[in-house]
């Protein structure tokens, strides 16, 4: 008896082009599994952003659109409102990196949450700009060495990192905001449940739902995939706690 197989929503014969050990593949797999479980494949429009996350449309077998850098939430807003106005409402989610969501597109992201747009956002937080060579990003931890902070992030020059899930949870239009990790099996299962809950919030029409995934970037962190997961477990979760910050379905 087959107890595990490739999700249907992943394209046949597709092979991820991410670096070895990158968590992007794992998260896309979880998204595909949730799309399968909720039977959303034929009714979904995914919005890809710029950065490593853009490759989503190469692997996910749903309708996808590419947005300008940082503007995924704005594009998703337009799609959601237009399809709703045409009485053919689609399930719309964005898949963004932390630089795209929380720095370049912070205005679009935050105001989508404040307006309570009925979309789902998945943000991959790997604490740097991975695709362009590991530069300092909005979520780079204090003291973390990147190619543009060779002595480590410091308060006087770079300021403090942004905690996206906490900020989004403060917005009144947010239905669900959580931070999850995929660094061990327990957290992979919790991450999938969080993504499923965020998707269900949109299906029920409750408002903006947001999942931040703490993810590794072994290439730019100069660590092995296993050590990257250990770093997330021991260091990053101290700065970015794994938690559900807002869930109106529990209120």
């Amino acid at each position, binding site marked *: *008896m*087959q*107890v*595990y*197989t*490739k999700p249907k929503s*992943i394209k046949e014969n597709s*092979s*991820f082009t*991410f*670096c*070895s*050990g*990158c*968590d*992007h*593949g*794992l998260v896309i*797999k979880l998204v595909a599994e949730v799309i399968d479980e909720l039977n959303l494949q034929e009714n979904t429009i995914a919005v890809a952003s710029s950065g490593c996350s853009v490759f989503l449309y190469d692997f996910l077998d749903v309708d996808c659109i590419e947005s300008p850098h940082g503007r995924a939430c704005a594009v998703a807003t337009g799609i959601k409102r237009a399809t709703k106005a045409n009485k053919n409402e689609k399930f719309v989610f964005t898949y963004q990196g932390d630089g795209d969501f929380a720095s370049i597109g912070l205005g679009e992201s935050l105001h989508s949450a404040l307006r309570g747009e009925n979309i789902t956002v998945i943000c991959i937080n790997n604490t740097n700009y991975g695709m362009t060579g590991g530069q300092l990003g909005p979520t780079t931890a204090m003291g973390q060495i990147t190619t543009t902070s060779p002595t480590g992030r410091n308060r006087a020059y770079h300021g403090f990192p942004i905690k996206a899930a906490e900020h989004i949870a403060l917005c009144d239009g947010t239905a669900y905001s959580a931070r999850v990790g995929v660094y*061990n*099996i327990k957290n*992979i*299962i919790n991450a999938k449940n969080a993504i499923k809950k965020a998707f269900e919030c949109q299906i029920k029409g409750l408002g903006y739902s947001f999942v931040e995934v703490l993810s590794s970037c*072994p290439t730019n962190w100069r660590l*092995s*995939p*296993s050590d990257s*997961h250990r770093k997330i477990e021991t260091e990053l979760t101290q700065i970015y706690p794994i938690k559900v910050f807002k869930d109106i379905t529990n209120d």
Partner: protein
Amino acid sequence: MSYITIDDSKCKSCYLCIDVCPKNLIKKSTHTGKTGECIVEFSDSNNQCIACKQCAMVCPDIAITNVYKE
């Protein structure tokens, strides 16, 4: 007998599956993969695999997709 299948053409030698296997049935092979490093292989001569699916869940490249339990 439970077993898994590994797609050699997709394995990128991250070795995350080696870390999670509770029975230590996944090991580095002598074959090199697309990254130029040794890919992994599954060997279970004593039928120890319990089809826990952890290797498939942790694989970021969908190289381990078929897990069979019998």
